[in-house]
């Protein structure tokens, strides 16, 4: 950094700023200010120039004011004392005749994130809300949200809230949307802005005036509104029909979500909406913006989850083109897998086959796994294609094919023979750990059908010393013992050598243990080994479990158009259930306004429960089995019942993690998305008293019913336990919304 510690440069800048000749010439003055900003942008410490800069901000030039406010916003946290100077001149600007300057001053003032500034903000904000220029009102409305955020826990001013609600009737569309956004932030604790009938209808009427951002956000806010009657509901849907055809994909998505949620009791309406949104979604899938395309594809997958075959006639739209990035190709292949049907299976497989020989290893393997997936329904064709691919003798292709075979054989036992015929000759081409494991498993489990199975395994045993992966060695052990049962004569010698190696020479403890285990097992006789090892070789029922198709639309309607489908279901659960951000993390946001991070906040509260519970200390790691729990539960009377506010669905992992932090054990729990959702919890305090709890959520957006039973009647302990539980569930509910 050339400018770091540039004392000289700083002094020169100060001289320039203070020079009356410079100050007299507007352009020179601005150029000097610009230089300061440039230094700041390059990382130099220019905080020493604060008084001069504030003075420069008082000049009439509006561009200069902007530059100064940029400076002040960046430097204020370091110089809270001097920042008050800036506040003074900004307040003066709030009464400037030009609305541009007034708006700018308001925005910069609210942008100063430092404690104690609220008292200076209140007056200018209130007059800003009544300003005649819409530009100022826009800034003022959002300014209110910023101010409340700075206040932190303090009581929200009711008059301010009313003022904002009345501004929803403003003429300027952006002011209206800003009001909604601001109210949402301000009333976060009370569950956000309330959309009642007059407001909803007012918003619906203003819809046409809004820009695309406004439209999509208003559509999101309208999710809160529950129409009173069927008639009203259909009126709303008719009014908003145009949004489904909007040119902005975000509006289309938001409208779709609103339709799906509003029509949750009318499946035919939902189906109709999904049909109508097909066109816009497809064109988003082929849009120029890759990211929008990706988002659209993710949502297409979501829809396909409930309506398989919805896009089947448009399968050609999901063929990959050469220049697309990898992530889009992957999504498209997933989509292709899901929309395959009798008519298009030939073309889809043909297309996927083309990808299998792609230069990109990931893409080729992805395509092979995709064919493997389709093979669950169209077995013969797919096995044919996969076998053909083995002929290419390409390392990554063979490895992926073998893995696909392994998964397939497990689910569709009818194709075992075909797979076994294809297996010989591919052992040389498999080099990676995953592929080797798959091959060894196949040879071990179905070795009696592969003539050269023992000799292939023997080769592996020969080279076991140079084998890198312990997992491969473990697989090899199991496979060889299994094969020994069906073809003892050919395997005995090899097995002996392998066991000797594993027990005597192997360094990895897990492998050695596995070796010892089999050794001892073999000592106890062949019958015993058979009893232990001859588990089923396939399980077709698992396939049904895996593609639980046709999840009803309502299970995901509330997630539509959020990040959840973009992450994908499994990943989203992981991302959202991740334990609260590590403390260093929270500190890295030096800004006082860390209010949004509900999670770390919730966590702090949770941890606080321990010190001040006083009479109650829950013992960690007490485990009650389900039977014990059931017995105790039935024998006790409910000592406390309450209901907690709850919004949306439940993430079981989150709940469990949160409860674990306060030493409440989760005995049993329904899976996510099940209705009614139930969970049973138990906890024990140091005095030996048991607390058994049932959580019950009848439907999404209902209240959470909690009933607690206690083994010994101690009211004060019960009180503390319930309040701890309430805090935890409150924190979790905050995350969900």
């Amino acid at each position, binding site marked *: 950094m050339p400018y770091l510690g540039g004392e000289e440069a700083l002094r020169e800048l100060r001289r320039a700023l203070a020079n009356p000749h410079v100050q007299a010439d507007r352009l020179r003055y601005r150029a000097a200010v610009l230089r300061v900003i440039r230094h700041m942008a390059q990382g130099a410490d220019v905080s020493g120039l604060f008084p001069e800069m504030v003075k420069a901000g008082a000049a009439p030039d*509006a561009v200069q004011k902007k530059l100064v406010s940029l400076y002040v916003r960046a430097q204020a946290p370091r110089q809270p004392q001097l920042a008050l100077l800036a506040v003074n001149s900004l307040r003066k600007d709030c009464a400037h005749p030009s609305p*541009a300057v007034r708006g700018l001053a308001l925005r910069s003032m609210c942008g100063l994130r430092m404690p104690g500034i609220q008292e200076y903000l209140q007056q200018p904000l209130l007059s800003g809300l009544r300003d*005649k220029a819409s530009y100022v009102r826009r800034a003022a409305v959002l300014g209110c949200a910023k101010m409340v955020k700075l206040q932190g826990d303090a009581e929200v001013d009711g008059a301010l809230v009313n003022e904002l609600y009345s501004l929803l009737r403003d003429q300027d569309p*952006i002011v209206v949307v800003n009001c909604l956004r601001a109210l949402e932030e301000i009333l976060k604790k009370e569950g956000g802005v309330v959309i009642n009938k007059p407001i909803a209808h007012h918003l619906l009427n203003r819809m046409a005036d809004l820009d695309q951002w406004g439209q999509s*956000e208003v559509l999101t806010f309208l999710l809160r509104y529950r129409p009173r009657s069927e008639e009203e509901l259909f009126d709303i849907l008719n009014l908003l029909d145009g949004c489904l055809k909007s*040119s902005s*994909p975000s509006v289309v998505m938001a409208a779709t979500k609103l339709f799906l949620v509003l029509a949750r009791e009318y499946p035919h309406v939902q189906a109709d909406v999904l049909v109508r949104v097909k066109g816009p979604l497809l064109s988003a899938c082929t849009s120029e913006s890759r990211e929008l395309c990706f988002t659209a594809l993710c949502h297409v997958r979501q829809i396909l989850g409930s309506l398989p075959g919805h896009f089947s006639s448009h399968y050609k739209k999901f063929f990959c083109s050469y220049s697309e990035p990898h992530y889009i190709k992957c999504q498209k292949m997933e989509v292709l897998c899901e929309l395959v049907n009798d008519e298009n299976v030939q073309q889809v497989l043909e297309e996927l086959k083309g990808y299998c020989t792609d230069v990109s290893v990931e893409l080729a393997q992805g395509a092979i796994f995709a064919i493997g997936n389709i093979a669950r329904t169209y077995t013969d064709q797919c096995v044919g294609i996969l076998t053909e691919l083995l002929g290419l003798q390409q390392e990554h292709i063979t490895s992926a094919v073998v893995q696909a075979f392994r998964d397939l054989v497990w689910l569709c036992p009818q194709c075992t023979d075909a797979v076994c015929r294809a297996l010989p000759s591919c052992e040389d081409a498999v080099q990676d750990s995953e592929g080797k494991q798959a091959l060894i498993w196949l040879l071990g489990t179905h070795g009696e059908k592969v003539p050269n199975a023992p000799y292939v395994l023997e080769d592996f045993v020969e080279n076991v010393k140079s084998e890198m992966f312990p997992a491969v060695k473990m697989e090899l052990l199991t496979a060889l013992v299994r094969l020994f049962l069906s073809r003892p004569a050919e395997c005995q010698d090899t097995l002996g050598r392998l066991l000797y190696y594993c027990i005597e020479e192997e360094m990895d403890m897990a492998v050695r243990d596995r070796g010892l285990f089999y050794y001892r097992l073999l000592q106890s006789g062949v019958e015993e080994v058979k009893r232990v090892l001859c588990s089923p070789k396939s399980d077709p029922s698992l396939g049904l479990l895996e593609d639980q198709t046709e999840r009803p639309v309502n299970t995901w309607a509330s997630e539509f*158009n959020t*990040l959840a489908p973009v992450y994908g279901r499994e990943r989203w659960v992981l991302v959202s259930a991740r334990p609260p951000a590590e403390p260093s993390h929270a500190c890295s946001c030096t800004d006082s306004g860390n209010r949004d991070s509900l999670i770390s906040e919730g966590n702090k509260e949770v941890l606080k429960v321990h010190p001040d519970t006083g009479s109650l200390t829950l013992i960690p790691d007490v485990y009650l089995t389900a039977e014990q729990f059931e017995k105790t539960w039935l024998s006790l009377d409910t000592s406390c019942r309450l209901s907690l506010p709850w919004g949306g669905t439940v993430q079981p992992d989150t709940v469990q993690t949160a409860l674990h932090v306060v030493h409440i054990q989760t005995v049993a729990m329904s899976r996510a998305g099940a209705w009614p959702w139930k969970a049973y919890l138990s906890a024990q305090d140091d005095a030996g008293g048991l607390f058994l709890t049932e959580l019950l959520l009848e439907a999404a957006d209902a209240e959470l019913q909690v009933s607690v039973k206690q083994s010994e009647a101690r009211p004060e302990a019960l009180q503390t336990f319930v309040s701890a539980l309430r805090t935890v569930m409150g924190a979790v509910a905050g995350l969900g919304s």
Partner: protein
Amino acid sequence: MAASALFILDLKGKPLISRNYKGDVGLGEIEHFMGLVLQREEEGALTPLLTHGKVHFLWIKHANLYLVATTKKNGNASLVYSFLYKVVEVFCEYFKELEEESIRDNFVIVYELLDELMDFGFPQTTDSKILQEYITQEGNKLETGKSRVPTTVTNAVSWRSEGIKYKKNEVFIDVIESVNLLVSANGSVLLSEVVGTIKLKVFLSGMPELRLGLNDRVLFELTGRGKNKSVELEDVKFHQCVRLSRFDNDRTISFIPPDGDFELMSYRLNTQVKPLIWIESVIEKFSHSRVEIMVKAKGQFKKQSVANGVEIAVPVPSDADSPKFKTSAGSARYLPERNLVIWTIKSFPGGKEHLMRAHFGLPSVEKEEEEGRPPISVRFEIPYFTVSGIQVRYMKIIEKSGYQALPWVRYITQSG
């Protein structure tokens, strides 16, 4: 939605410009971004949505820049991406090109724009026409521009400001259709799609009311003129200025246009179209020495039309050298850095056929790994012609002052 902060990073991941709108995500978080991108790229699992801890990064790449929005909320992804693209669009309109250099040169304006585009994480004024009224390159006009009093009309038209005046009142209508076609090696059409847009360039005074008539099949059926040539449009989307209710009722497209350039509507046609320029190629590879490529192009459109600026890009092996070309029309160039031969034909009349032969030397040592074979791609533009046959039947301009205005129509078909 609510993006917490917006970053513009260079290719190495160093922030050029950052703007923290909400302050709930620390500016330091961005340091994790580049690491994540690299890591995921290596795993082959790069997605436009990344996460670190509780922070989600939504990013797009433009030229040599990354634009990243961070958020902690479970927001609306398509909205954020649309916004990022909007930011790119606005910047492009200000600086012609958006890249590292232009950001560095104009960072004051960039800051000003970021300030106006978004406040507290919510998009505000994003219409570049309106922004240009009060944020100018020189920043001199500033005092006059923004003090305009907002319209007091209840039904304010947010996309058009009042009091616009032109000496000559004109409207230019561009009907642009782009054809996306994918043809397999054996000549069957895998994918065909026509995406059409109607773009307007409006130089009209006051608050004019425009009506556009197309040869839309649904409309013709409504009015009983089924015999005329008509087009069935699918997936029609309009600019927000179009009154959708009227379109739904009687299929008239009526609107108050914004000033200057804008896209009035877009549509899609799913009908099978035959390739406008048919390409056949023969590649003969003599191992270890040379490769000969013969490409034949045939214009399969009306004789009266002429395709302009036809560019046929033929991929060649990356280790080819000493190119020799023979063409029946136009010229061919070898671009070794892209492994392509570009054959350009300035004008290509319909029904004609052209040939190109290319000859390359190959090194005698063959490369081990197999190369992907990218498809041959064609770029072209055919003026005064639309594949779909869409026509502008009339454009009516009504304004209170009753001036005369001239509409101009132009049709172009281009490659997608």
